[in-house]
């Protein structure tokens, strides 16, 4: 108990210390200022610019920026699709894995390029090393670089005055990879190797077990992929068991470090934003609002899991360590709860324990985190641009309440921004509620859930929430390989990802072109505790309220029926 508390507190302290350090570094990188890595990376950067014929000084209008995002991403999807289909013929396939079938290939490609990393396949069985490395691992970099570039472009829009452009996507994209993702992943991959995570290209090993049986041990270039899937909040594992697999997450130390790695960039970007705004308090205010919701979620999950399952009290089962079904003993309830909340609040969706086996309340928080659509830190970059929609609404309400036009950082929020900020998020309830409701009407699709009753409903809710929010978290008791689900989810992921990117860039573009007005007189200050409270309320009311009826039929019903001793 005391150990658990210490571990969770330490996590908070590490994140709070890391946020300004990494945040300031990223601000320098994106501003093109000199930093620690400039001597090493700048020459490489220049060569890439030359090869790709990128004019690093050519700034892009928001629409041009959005076009570049889409163009790069479409090319990535096509390449990844081709790799998955043709992996049998490609090198680094010691086990001669066959090509993935078309719909699964497409869903996987979309899933990785949108940063969702929903895996309708088992990584070690279905993919070659080439697919894992050139496909999955590379896509983790590309998807994250896309989201971070857009996040930074949005920050520029909010902080610059009367500028027609938001920067250059190609430059931001390459900088993200060279200065941030590659160095970070490289260092952490080495640490993970040191902790026992394999990094090899040799074929799976066959070993003789203690009982004398034979077992095939899956391994491969794991450490490199684990480092980047966490740092980029993508979450798609090398193994089907993801972070629960001992080769992926061998020790409590790797468990802790991987959780830190997940939250590092999303948290630090708030500080980057504060630096760009010339007032770091603005960044800390957003950080505080999100941290508050994060801590509440963590507390609920930890309490629910630590409390165990009341239905089991009558059985001779020791529940002193909480509900350990589906959890690894080396992580315990605290280490598991930390991952469950961190990975769902951000867009990671990686797991080190099976969310399916959580208690109803313990499972509801990850679901709600995903449904809030990256409002609690969110994915790298995507968390920030998703938060923009809540910021616009909060500013609008705050402005009305004090009788002034809404202003955020001196930027007047007008009808155009409100329209985008209200209408774009409609995708969220439509995708997260109507799609599963539709699926339940189709008998084959409705049979995808392994459980009946409220838990079954939770399974399908998680699946679609995860797709729309491009999170990738899942309840294992859901068969996503049904054609309806493969297609509906691919659609949900694409719309969920790119509509928000385009709308966020449009808002940023229109705000960036506006004159910045003085905020000294009359406007609502956006760095105060009061604004933090307002942000939390807005996230709760506009993000969570619409899911209550569905949650009532899912986890809440399951919870109360569990207390009443009812099973399904």
């Amino acid at each position, binding site marked *: 108990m005391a150990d658990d508390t210490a571990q969770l507190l330490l996590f908070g302290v590490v994140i709070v210390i890391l946020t300004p350090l990494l945040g300031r570094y990223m601000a320098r990188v994106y501003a093109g200022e000199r930093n620690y890595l400039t001597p090493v990376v700048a020459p490489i950067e220049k060569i890439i610019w030359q090869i790709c014929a990128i004019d690093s000084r050519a700034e892009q209008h928001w629409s041009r920026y959005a076009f570049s995002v889409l163009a790069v991403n479409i090319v990535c999807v096509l390449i990844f699709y081709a790799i998955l289909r043709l992996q049998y013929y490609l090198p680094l396939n010691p086990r001669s894995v066959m090509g993935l079938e078309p719909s699964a290939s497409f869903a996987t490609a979309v899933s990785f390029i949108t940063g969702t990393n929903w895996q309708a396949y088992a990584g070690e069985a279905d993919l070659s090393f080439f697919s894992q490395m050139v496909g999955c691992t590379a896509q983790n970099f590309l998807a994250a670089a896309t989201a971070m570039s857009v996040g930074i472009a949005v920050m520029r829009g909010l902080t610059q005055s009367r500028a027609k452009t938001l920067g250059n996507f190609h430059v931001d994209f390459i900088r993200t990879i060279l200065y941030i993702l590659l160095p970070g992943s490289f260092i952490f991959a080495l640490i993970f190797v040191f902790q026992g995570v394999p990094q090899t290209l040799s074929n799976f090993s066959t070993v003789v077990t203690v009982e004398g049986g034979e077992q095939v041990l899956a391994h491969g270039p794991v450490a490199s992929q684990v480092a980047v899937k966490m740092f980029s909040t993508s979450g798609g594992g090398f193994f089907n068991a993801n972070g629960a697999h001992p080769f992926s997450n061998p020790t409590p130390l790797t468990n802790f470090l991987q959780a830190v790695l997940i939250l590092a960039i999303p948290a630090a970007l708030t500080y980057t934003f504060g630096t760009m705004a010339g007032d770091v308090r603005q960044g800390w205010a957003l950080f505080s609002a999100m941290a508050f919701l994060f801590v509440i979620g963590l507390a609920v999950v930890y309490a629910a899991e630590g409390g165990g399952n009341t239905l089991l009290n009558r059985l001779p089962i020791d529940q002193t360590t909480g509900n350990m079904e589906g959890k690894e003993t080396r992580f315990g309830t605290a280490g598991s709860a930390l991952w469950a909340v961190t990975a769902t609040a951000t867009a990671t969706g990686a797991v080190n324990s099976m969310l399916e086996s959580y208690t109803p309340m313990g499972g509801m928080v990850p679901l709600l985190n995903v449904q809030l659509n990256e409002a609690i830190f969110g994915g790298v970059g995507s968390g920030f641009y998703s938060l923009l929609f809540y910021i616009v609404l909060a500013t609008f*309400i705050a402005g009305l309440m004090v*009788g002034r036009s809404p202003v955020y950082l001196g930027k007047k929020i007008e009808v155009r921004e*409100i329209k985008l900020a209200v*209408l774009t998020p409609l995708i969220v309830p439509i995708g997260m509620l109507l799609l599963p409701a539709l699926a339940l009407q189709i008998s084959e699709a409705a049979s995808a859930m392994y459980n009946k009753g409220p838990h079954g409903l939770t399974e399908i809710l998680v699946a679609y929430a995860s797709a729309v929010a491009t999170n990738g978290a899942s309840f294992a008791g859901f068969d996503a390989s049904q054609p309806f689900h493969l297609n509906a989810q691919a659609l949900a992921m694409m719309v969920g990802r790119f509509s928000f990117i385009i709308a966020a860039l449009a808002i940023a573009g229109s705000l960036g072109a506006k004159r910045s007005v003085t905020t000294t007189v009359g406007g*609502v200050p956006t760095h105060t505790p009061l604004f933090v409270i307002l942000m939390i309320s807005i996230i709760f009311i506009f993000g969570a309220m619409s899911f209550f009826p569905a949650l009532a039929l899912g986890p809440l019903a399951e919870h109360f029926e569990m207390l009443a001793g009812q099973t399904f």
Partner: protein
Amino acid sequence: MIWNETNGDLQLFDTGILRRAVVSAVRKLNPITLVHNPVIFVVEIVSILATLFVIRDLAAGDPTADAQVQITLWLWITVLFGNFAEAVAEERGKARAESLRASQKTTETKRLVLEHRMDFETVKSSELATGDVVLVEAGDIIPADGDVVDGIASVDESAITGESAPVIRESGGDRSSVTGGTKVVSDWMKVRVVIRPGGSFIDRMIAMVEGTRRQKTPSEVALTIMLVGQTIVFLVVVAALGPFSFYSGGMVATTFLLALLVTLIPTTIGALLSAIGIAGMERLVKANIIAKSGRTVEACGDVDTLLLDKTGTITFGNRMADAMKPLPGVQIRDLAEAAYLASLSDDTPEGRSILELVERTYGKMVENPAVLRHIPFSAETRISGVDLHPEGEVRKGSEDAIRSYAKMGENYQLTRIIQDIARSGGTPLVVARDHRVLGVIHLKDVIKPHIRDRFMQLRRMDVRTVMITGDNPLTAAAIAAEAGVDDFLAESTPERKLELIRKYQGEGRVVAMCGDGSNDAPALAQADVGVAMNDGTQAAKEAANIVDLDSDPTKLIEVVRVGKQLLISRGSLTTFSIANDVAKYFAILPPLFATVYPGLGALNVMDLHNPQSAILSAVIFNALVIIFLIPLALKGVNYVPSSPDMLLGRNLAVYGIGGIIAPFIGIKAIDLLIGGLGLV
């Protein structure tokens, strides 16, 4: 005058208004016209659907049909209440407009055939066109807004301003503008029609308070989008809930789902939104302010800088002699006598104030002064005075003019006196006799009483006041300090005014400007909010977007207050409306799924006595809250000037937290009541 009778508070619920509003509420059920209020429109569609389902269920003998009938009834009542809220505001607006219109009646008028001749033809005022010249004589009503081109007359403007004393209107200068609907008391004048009857400010204002041709303001548009968004979200939520509950093994009556939808969508603010806007306009008219658009009023809430002309606004138009300062070696009596003589022929207020000052001190100085010749003031010489009989002359004027008249070089003593006066905000008037400078008269600007308080109020609203004056910087600084303005622009010219406004706007400030003269027109047009005085020129009124019928520049306080109130009322009621949803979930969700998951009964924290009663109570509360909030929407949420952070905190506490708590109490009370009455 009708105006004056209705100029006070309209009874909040005057029976005549109420009766007409009820009729209008029913008439508004027409879906084609109701579409402009999307939220209430959705409630109407839902009510129609609910009616159909209830008829089906009644025929099928559904045991909950009784409750369904009542719920459906209340859904219709919700629509009517929503319409009623808007209708009340419109009817009150119409009552207000009626009084404005009284001054706009069609009258016979005399249109001149040729402008410079006096022959006219009699036409209806509605037939006039812009540019026509009409003759108005004693007893005539001025047919339209216009400019006096010839003649002088006294005009009773009480129909517009409520001020009973007639005012003088004459051609040329700043008093040449007349307002349609006012009445000539004496003499005659020729008026060129500037705005055709029907196109004037008052007509625009009438359209706005009646709510008929009211354009939605930007914040209203934004808010409507948000409310539509919320409505779509809850449509999706309820649509998905059908399949979800079917999957869960429970059949939920469609009427109950529709009830859930209506209680969740923001009906409260949806119903009150346009009422708030119309009522805001009506409050402005009550304060004798004519705004050209709702957008302007809203912009007033953002004003953070107010530019005011010194003269006539901060100070009375004229300066008064306050003291006499002789040069060393000059008897003060000699100075007084010279000043007295020099002012004898000067009938400007300044001149008269010098006579008064001297008489107050020394009595009548000179009996029957022998005046040979009056030298009137001219802008060229900047000097005035008299030549005496048989000889001798006295002069008064500006320092430069008198020094050149007296051929006086640099004089340290004189300069010191003049600087002292200037520093204290006064104007020095130098007096000389027979080419010898005697001393200086201290003319003082008299600051209007209570102006300081008004500026204090503005400051509390975060509005900086900037005084504009043609005075030199020293004088300006002294008056600025005395009047309590935050800043000043000295030695102003129309160009510098314009420049200043652009500079402030460049800093991102929202600038309001009060003005009356023709040379103010460019600045009024450039400012975000231009407030013209009703007694100002037509050009000024055209350039401005607000006209104050009382010609009181500090009226801006009222406009800012109404502008802010409009936004705050909308924001607060939106917050209240959305916060209500929390309690409604607790009321409706447990009974909705009670048969499938009885465990959810744990969420029935209000302990409502049965499922039908719970849903019905929530629907009734949702409808009644509209009626309860109508007075608040009409009066506007109380605005206490304070820092934005405090204001936000207070309103969030009252309408946010209040909005969460109120329905828990309300729904429980209604549940007890309908349980007691045995309705379900």
